[in-house]
């Protein structure tokens, strides 16, 4: 990805593909302009010298939470499958997987 000019059309096409979004040419133009404006604003953050600070991923200190390994009821399977677009043999049915690019 290019860096010197900031976000480019190619960058937008690339992240859209990563995010499984299809954009029209007009949308690529519009989103590129809008995202550039937003990232220009974020340049004030990028420019700060904060190497002395640890990144915080959350506002409170947190520890991994465990519970005893005791089986208990989960969601009602029929209810879950009833909400699915396509079901076969108690499974979520999808179109064939494969033939995808990187």
């Amino acid at each position, binding site marked *: 990805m290019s860096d010197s000019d900031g*976000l480019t059309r190619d960058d937008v096409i690339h992240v859209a593909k990563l995010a499984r979004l299809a954009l029209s040419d007009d949308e690529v133009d519009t*989103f590129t302009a809008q995202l550039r*404006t937003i990232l220009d604003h974020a340049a004030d*953050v990028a420019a*700060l010298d*904060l190497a002395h600070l640890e990144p915080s991923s*959350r506002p409170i200190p947190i520890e991994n939470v465990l519970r005893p390994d005791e089986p208990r009821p989960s969601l009602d399977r029929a209810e879950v499958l*009833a909400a699915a*677009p396509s079901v076969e043999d108690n499974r979520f049915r999808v179109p064939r997987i494969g*033939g995808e690019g990187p």
Partner: protein
Amino acid sequence: MTTAGDADVHAFLLLLRDEALAQADAVDAAVAQGRDPGPLAGVPVALKDNLCTRGVPTTCGSKILDGWHPPYDATVVEQLRAAGAIALGKTNMDEFAMGSSTENSAFGPTRNPRDTDRVPGGSSGGSAAAVAAGFTPISLGSDTGGSIRQPAALCGVVGMKPTYGRVSRYGLVAFASSLDQIGPFATTVDDAALLFDVLAGHDPLDSTSLQAPSPSTAPNVGDGVEGVRVGLCADLIEGCAPDVAAQVYAAAEALAAAGAKIDEIRVPEFAYGLSAYYLIAPAEASSNLARYDGVRYGLRVDADDAAAMNTATRTAGFGAEVKRRIMLGTYALSAGYYDAYYAQAQRVRTMVMQAFDRAYLSVDVLLGATAPTTAFALGAKIDDPMAMYMNDVCTIPSNLSGHPAISVPFGVGTDGLPVGIQVLAPALEEALLFRVAAAVEAAAPK
């Protein structure tokens, strides 16, 4: 209780008329049998449509979940039911809680009951409007960058964000998991405190839920502010319209008259909060919204292979603002940019947290504006994402730090529309927050 007039406001996406009447019957039966019907017995409550309600449509304001019925209730929904409250319906919102005006809803905007040409704010615009219009005395919203407090300010009601981890997020459809919190809307600070007390507390189903029990706040709301040190925070006032700033200064004078000690305080680090938030929140959202892929629930647009189906589904199902934020977040997390953007934004988060800690060495609470302007016109900012994001500049710092904050109506702007005063308190200090908010409310111009 009536929702005649919701045709003009569009606060609700779904009314639960039959269910509400059945719940009301159940409350009557409990009373008749001498059982305790609960602290909110018979009180109607509206629920933002990103709260899972089992067997009842939950759309998050998005086409991608249109028609989806969750297979479980959010913990807060169960808590309200146990308290005897009556779920009145699901309210409109910006899609997946992304927005500050409720104009990003896939089902049409909500209008501000105080002036239906204006926005109610967002993303919890429907919940704010439902209370402001008198359709319900209380409602629930969610606040990630200000999405309870800002619509409360624009609609002239009370809206509060708890300390992160105080209220369970189980069943709140996730937008940004380190920032999201559920909170109350009400017409009075007393009612907001009552509702908060019902919701607060540990939930083993939410691994970010605070272990510590949450002490009751409602009984002490009227205890006053004698000796409370209030930091009048220039960084939460200076960027605001003059008529909004005027009300903040008036609220500070009122608190001084009530016995508080007012000091001016600067927290310049707040200025970086907006940029950091608009890197962190979209990054978390890009991960949280990856699940909407047409496989297990919601919309599916068919295609020859699974990847094409994912793409077609997400392209058809998501609106422009959601797409924008997903792409922004994906970019901020991508190789080559992660450190300059996302990790750096997390260091800004640390900086903001430390700035709050320093401020609270000399003051007990901070005072400022909630939103920089009164309610703007529908359509005025929708084509300018950056202008829309600026609505959150005063509310974002508390989301980054996880601290509680509240908006209290106080006066009007030059256009006659409501102004909201914001009080911020340290983590876990909701009782103090409500006391100061009540003192502001008591002095509000009638």
